[in-house]
Structure formats: structure tokens, C-alpha cells
């Protein structure tokens, strides 16, 4: 074999071995346990504390039953309570812990309702400049039954 080829192959070998070595160090141990992802991530995700209780739990007997049925009839029925009120699992398991108040700013409703070309034209949208005289939306709209002004 030509000596200069030996050099080149040696260099290539160093690169490949180096790559394999570094890769073996940085690939997480549990990689490939269940598939082409880190197996540990399954446990990590499972161990997260549950933050959301789900809209259903708000409508239990003795809780916000009326409000729930109003909401369930409204066009906001696709927007879960905790979307606006924030994660409230602690409140559901212990009613003494109050969830922080719902975000009632114009910007928050605007995240979904401000006019934007990317939204389907059939979705109710408003022009933030001219609509509602710069008052908070809940001043006129009931957030739980939007057309019940």
C-alpha cells in the first residue's frame, strides 16, 4: 500500500473511531429501548405532576354546575375552562386553594379573536382597534356564553 494512502486511511480511521467514541458517550443509555427515542423520557413524562383537572371536573355536583351547563351550551364549549383559568388541579382536589383569577385582558381574548389573515374567515374575529371601545371584553361579553352579552 502506498505510504501516503496509509496516512489518509489512518486519518479517516481516527475520524471514524473518534466519531463512534464520542457518539457512544453522548447517546443516552435508554435510547432505543422502545423505539427511536430516549426510553427514559417515558418515565420522566409519567412522573410529571398533573396540573390540569379537565373541564368535566368543574361541572361536578356542588361545584360550578350551572356555569358548566351554560358553558356546555355555548359556542365556547370547545374552549376548556382551564384555557382561560389556568391549570387548576390543586383547586379541584382542595377547594380551599383558589386558582388565580382568569386572564380577562383584551390581549388574551385577542389571541384567538383578533383579526388575522391566517385564520379561517368563518371564525369570529374582530378588529382590536375599533371593536369594543377599548373596554375589557368581559364588560360586554360573557366569557362563558359569548353571545349572552
Amino acid at each position, binding site marked *: 500500500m*502506498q*505510504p*501516503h*494512502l496509509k*496516512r*489518509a486511511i489512518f*486519518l*479517516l480511521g481516527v*475520524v471514524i473511531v473518534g466519531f463512534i467514541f464520542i*457518539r457512544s458517550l*453522548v*447517546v*443516552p443509555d435508554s*435510547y432505543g429501548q422502545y423505539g*427511536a*427515542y430516549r426510553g427514559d423520557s417515558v418515565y420522566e413524562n409519567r412522573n410529571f405532576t398533573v*396540573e390540569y383537572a379537565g373541564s368535566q371536573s368543574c361541572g361536578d355536583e356542588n361545584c360550578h354546575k350551572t356555569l358548566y351547563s351554560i358553558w356546555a351550551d355555548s359556542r365556547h364549549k370547545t374552549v376548556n375552562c*382551564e*384555557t382561560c383559568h*389556568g*391549570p387548576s388541579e390543586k383547586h379541584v382536589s382542595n377547594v380551599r386553594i383558589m*386558582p*388565580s383569577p382568569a*386572564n380577562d385582558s383584551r390581549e*388574551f381574548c385577542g*389571541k*384567538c379573536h383578533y383579526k*388575522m*389573515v*391566517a*385564520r*379561517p*374567515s368563518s371564525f369570529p374575529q374582530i378588529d382590536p382597534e375599533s371593536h369594543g371601545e377599548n373596554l375589557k371584553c368581559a364588560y360586554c361579553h360573557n366569557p362563558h356564553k359569548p353571545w349572552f352579552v
Partner: protein
Amino acid sequence: MVVELFNVNWKVAWGMLIANYFFLTGLSAGSFLLGALSEVFGQEKYRSVSKMAIILATILLIIAPLNLIAELGQTGRFWTLLTGFHPTSPMAWGSFLLIAYPLLCVAEGYFLFRRDNAKRAVSGSMAFLYRALVLWRTDLTEATIAFDKKMVKTLAIIGIPLAFAVHGYTGYILGVVVARNLWSTPQMPVLFLLSAMVSGTALMILIVYIMQKFFSSKKYADSTLIVNLGTLLMVFLLVDMLYIFFELTMRWYSYELSKDSVRELLFGKVSFYFVWIEMILGAIIPFLLVTIPKIRKNVGAVLLASALSLMGVFAMRMDFVVGGQFYSRNGVIDNLYTSFPLYLPPLTEVMPFAAIWALGFFMFALAVWTLPWEYKEGAAGGD
């Protein structure tokens, strides 16, 4: 508490940087294959571009993946592409191709330039650099020189399928996206490869002209070479246009969704870019410039044709990558992109785009400054 909602206003997920990546890998594959014409297929009239071809192929493929890294939201985590591997994901294969191919280019360049580098390694202020470039082995016997030639040929042969793969896979990853009408066809890799040949040849013409005219020892551009390359450009443009013609017409006969994508290209929102910039300015006019007998021997015409077809191929990358996202399987995304430029790349894409091209120019300047890219008449290949 979560009061922040995800706002779905990201309109074009794959923007200018991805188009640029496709463009650069195409240029690289095109240059490589052009170099292989003489190294593998013995087309002696293109021998003088083989060194330039390997320089371009290497540099273009080193800067191409930078687009992908810049485009990631989490730039610092790009290395996980190499630690995770998913056998049925074309992108996972791609990240290994993107390493293997430049390695091969560097290896080929090593053998191709070794003789000249070894000569320069003996004396001179830069001798240390050339000594490093030949890995501190300067033997120049008949045998080693013949051996280098053989290695160049072998590596070029291995490189041909690799070049096809590294660029074909970019078309492939579009082709596998079922939700996008314009993309989801098995023709995508071929379409990308054909236009890669066009752009690779066009770039080579421009580079060879500029380098020979202004930076070579003779300060004079070899016009027969340019005209020969122009003839190649003609062939590639013809094949490319024929293929697009087949693609458009056959899709027109096909099922309604497929027909829709043709309608969008020809009469829809990207029609201005597709019909005028990509096809007429970027393919038909350059094709005429390098075909009409009276003007095809004119160096100026060939240069103009090259510049136009380079622009056309870049437009093709933009039309397909960005334009493909305007239309989904369930029809045109309404309401979107009704105003003229359709898509304005955000600054977060324009800045890396400029930086990557600047880096490319810098690396190219460095390469032609150090490496003996010039072809010397009379000396056999490998010189």
C-alpha cells in the same frame, strides 16, 4: 399558571433557508458530477474543470447544512441528529449522507491536489501548510502519481451515487410529505437532480470564466471550454424542461388533487414565479441562448444563460419549497398570501442566508488562493 396560548400564525415553516439548502446541495452535486465527467468517463474536454469541481463540491456541501442548523429553533441541539437514528426516517439518513459526502470530496481533493501540494511543500513561506495538506508525506514517484490518479477515479466512482443520494434525498424528504399536494410525488428527487445538473453547470461556467479571466496566470478565459460547457448546459436544460413538461401534463391527466397542484403552479399564487421567473426567464431564454446556432458560440451569451438559469433554479427551489406549503391536501389555504410577494423571508432567515453565502465566498477565496486550481495544458490529470 398557563395563560399563554400558542398562536398559530407561523405561515411558512420551511422558508428561504431550506430553499437555500436545497439550492446549495444541488450546486454541490452538480459540480461533483461535472468533475466526474473527465475523471470517470474520460471526457477530456472537461478535464480542466475537475479541480474546480471538487473545490466547489466540497465548499458548497460544507456550507449547505449550516442552513439547516440555522433554521432549527434550538440551534445548539443539532448534534442530536447524529446521536439519534431512526431507520425509516429519510432525514436521519440525510444527516449521515451530509457527513459522508463532504468527507469523500475532501479525500478526492487530497489525491487530486497531492502532486502539486507535495511540490510546494518543499520550500516557500507557506510550505508548512502544504506539508499539512499532504499529511507530511511528499513522495512523488511514478508509482505514487499513477496511484493518485487511480484513487481519484475510484473515489469519483463512489462519489457519483453518493452525490445522487445527497441531493436526491432533499427531493425525497419533500416527496414523502403526503399532506402537501405539490410535493407528494415520487418524481421529486428526479426533478431536483435534473435541475441540480443545470445549476451545477451554470455555476461552473461563471466561476471558470471569472477565475480564468481575472485570477489565472494567463488572464484569459478559454472560450472553447465555456462553449463546450454551454452545450452541456443546453442538454441539461432540455432534459429538465422536458421533465417538467411531462410532470405538468401527466399530472393534468391525473386525479383531481394532483391536477390542482398544476393549476396552482400555472395559474395560482406562485404562477408569476413559476411561469415567468422559473420557466421563461430561468429556463426557456437560457436554453435559446445556448441553442440558437448564431449566438451559442458567443461567450457572453453563454454567461448570460448561466446567470439566468442559476436564478431559475433558485426560483425553482423557492417555488417548490415555499410554494408547496401554500397548498394542502384539502385545498388552497384560504386567506393566506393574497398580497403580491406571497412570502417575505423574516430577518431571522435573511441574516443567516447572507452569512452563509459570505462564508462560502470566503472559503472559496481561501481555497483558490492556497490550492493549485489552475489546469496546466500538457500535464496529465492529477496535475
